[in-house]
């Protein structure tokens, strides 16, 4: 598809919509807008528009559609697959100025926000009202619009589900400029196709989200994490299916190996409370009071000991949670800092297959002579495996990455898994989605895209 270049005349028309101070053109745009945090692709937009209302977005989209200008929406730019990179140049809409929390509805247990509200701001706001927004991706400075666009998951997915499960309603602007209200505050909805759910996870390719109504839960007052040291990563991972089978309901089951913890220690300059074991499982339980939470975790703690845990450490106060979860939250950055360059595989497999899958990655690392550290959400089957360049030349690294990705996704497919658990496809994982999806499925996605965006101007070159 060919697009028009943003001309001075286009710029002036777009500037008139958002105002001079919200329009950056050419060299006024910071190079930061050329990339996200990992996607491996860079391109500057021609024009950056800082939007502040649905109406502005609607007018911009109508103009861009008429003039065939490509448009990419960007929140905080914390994506990992290049989804918010302007591959074709053109217009970039930055939503971080749309950062107002519009309404807390305590009767319907919903909060209505603009897309630029940061995840950490949202959590803090609802918690101060005794409420709880469960999705908990590691990157707290991501915008809620970005979270919805990737259907972000996070650590609590094992008990509470993912972003999609908490989006009740969306206001969206179609690529042609029309404004739609999808869903609402209703709990049940069987009224035709759920377009809201098609847009969630569509990575900014179908519509621009300008407002979201999110479902909240009462805040569980008490949560306790258990840190279980094991003699090996295999032993830690082998415990996971047994924990799931035991019908205990942890909010999170994470796994981590000592080498990743040591990288986080180095990165943060802070010591983890225990690094004597080669691997750890980290489980969290929440509930209405301490005695119920203690009751809930006791069975799982005993089970872990039976399955070979050396001990179970209790992470039960704010200070202890900070010492453990700060490190967990820094794993991605720590691994990044440990290698000159890296790429990532955010694969998801059925959780019963996690242990086998990780064993496969260890064998693959040996075979390719390449460091493949990993950590992840053992409880929901979503792994983050990092392909580290270390001392390799660029060409060797690229070749090994290609081989590694092919093998990792093929093995995931064999296990009944999928290409991405929570980071999305964007630009970086397109070929793997194509390789591991039925042609009919991809063709249907293409027709959905065309139905929303007949001129293909919205986030071109992404997902499919």
């Amino acid at each position, binding site marked *: 598809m060919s697009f028009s270049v943003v001309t001075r005349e286009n710029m002036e028309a777009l500037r008139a919509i958002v105002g001079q101070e919200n329009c950056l053109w050419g060299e006024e745009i910071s190079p930061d807008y050329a990339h996200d945090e990992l996607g491996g692709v860079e391109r500057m937009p021609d024009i950056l528009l800082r939007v502040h209302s649905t109406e502005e977005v609607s007018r911009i989209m109508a103009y861009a559609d008429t003039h065939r200008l490509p448009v990419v929406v960007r929140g905080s730019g914390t994506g990992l697959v290049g989804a918010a990179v302007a591959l074709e140049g053109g217009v970039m809409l930055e939503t971080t100025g749309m950062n107002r929390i519009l309404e807390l509805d305590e009767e319907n247990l919903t909060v209505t926000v603009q897309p630029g509200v940061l995840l950490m701001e949202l959590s803090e706001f609802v918690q101060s009202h005794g409420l709880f927004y469960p999705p908990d991706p590691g990157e707290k400075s991501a915008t809620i619009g970005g979270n919805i666009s990737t259907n972000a998951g996070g650590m609590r997915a094992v008990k509470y589900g993912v972003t999609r499960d908490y989006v009740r309603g969306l206001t969206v602007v179609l690529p042609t400029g029309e404004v739609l209200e999808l869903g609402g505050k209703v709990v049940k909805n069987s009224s035709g196709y759920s377009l809201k759910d098609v847009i969630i996870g569509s990575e900014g390719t179908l519509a621009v989200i300008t407002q979201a109504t999110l479902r909240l839960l009462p805040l569980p007052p*008490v949560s306790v994490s*258990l*840190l279980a040291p094991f003699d090996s990563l295999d032993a830690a991972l082998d415990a996971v299916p047994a924990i799931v089978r035991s019908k205990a309901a942890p909010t999170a089951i994470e796994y981590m190996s000592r080498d990743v913890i040591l990288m986080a220690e180095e990165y943060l300059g*802070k*010591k*983890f*409370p*225990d690094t004597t074991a080669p691997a750890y499982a980290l489980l969290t339980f929440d509930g209405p009071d*301490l005695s119920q939470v203690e009751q809930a975790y006791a069975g799982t*703690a005993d089970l872990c*000991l039976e399955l070979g845990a050396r*001990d*179970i*450490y*209790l*992470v*039960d*106060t*704010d*200070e*202890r949670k900070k*010492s*453990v979860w700060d490190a967990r939250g820094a794993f991605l950055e720590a691994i990044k800092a440990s290698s000159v360059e890296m790429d990532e595989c955010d694969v998801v497999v059925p959780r019963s297959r996690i242990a086998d899958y990780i064993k496969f990655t260890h064998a693959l690392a040996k075979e390719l002579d390449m460091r493949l550290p990993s950590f992840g959400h053992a409880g929901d089957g979503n792994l983050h495996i990092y392909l580290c360049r270390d001392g390799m030349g660029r060409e060797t690294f690229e070749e090994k990455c290609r081989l590694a990705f092919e093998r990792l996704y093929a093995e995931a497919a064999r296990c009944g898994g999928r290409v991405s658990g929570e980071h999305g496809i964007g630009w970086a994982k397109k070929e793997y989605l194509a390789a591991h999806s039925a042609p009919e499925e991809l063709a249907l996605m293409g027709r959905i895209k065309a139905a929303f965006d007949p001129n293909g101007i919205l986030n071109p070159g992404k997902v499919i």
Partner: protein
Amino acid sequence: MEILVCVKQVPGTTEVEVDPVTGVLKRDGVASKMNPYDLYAVELGLRLAEATGGRLRALSMGPPQAKAVLLETAAMGAESGVLVSDRRLGGADVLATGYTLSQAVRTLGKVDLILCGKQTTDGDTAQVGAEMAEFLGLPHANNVQSVEPDGEGYVKVRIDLDSHISVQRLPLPCVLCIDSEVNTPRLPSYRRKKSLPPDCVKTISLDDFGDREPAHYGLTGSPTQVERIFPPEKNSEKEMLHGSGEDMAKELAAILRCRKLI
């Protein structure tokens, strides 16, 4: 080495509200926890006990439910705990608390080293450790960052005095108040917690002390009388003093005098 660590149970959150009518802290429904500053002293104590083949015991003063922090200390690795709990000790200020603890220490047999946190998150006075040491007639140091026993009856301690670090050699027994963030405290062990013997925490009262005169303890033994507790007005104005500690102290004293506060 026989090591004793003093710990305190404090509200589980720093956002305890004060009832504006009665001036009493609203403790209902507020969970309790070990004073976070004490965790560093516990960790240091455990490491010293391990290094010297000694043992760590813990001491606390409070209502019966404060036993929980001693059990927690035991789950972290302490051998046992002693809770001083007696209604006659209630309402103690820092001085009476220091005296009470000094009396309790005297019931515990041989103690080479007493460790405390630098302060508590509820009282924030940072005085009890030093006062207890004075009542015991022992040398003491605050803001201690590291402790190295020399095996000859002395410890080399590193003390943060804000303007400089002082390294001193103190004779044992002594009292050391441990600075925060000097280590990463270990987590309590579920395995240890489950296997603690039922008598690992002992409760003692005024009747066990050498000085059994009730007037020396609790509210009557406290020169500080609390008239009222109220949330402070929020005030973002501040004045910064600069210069050496001595210069700033002189300047501060002058300001306080000038405003007739002293």
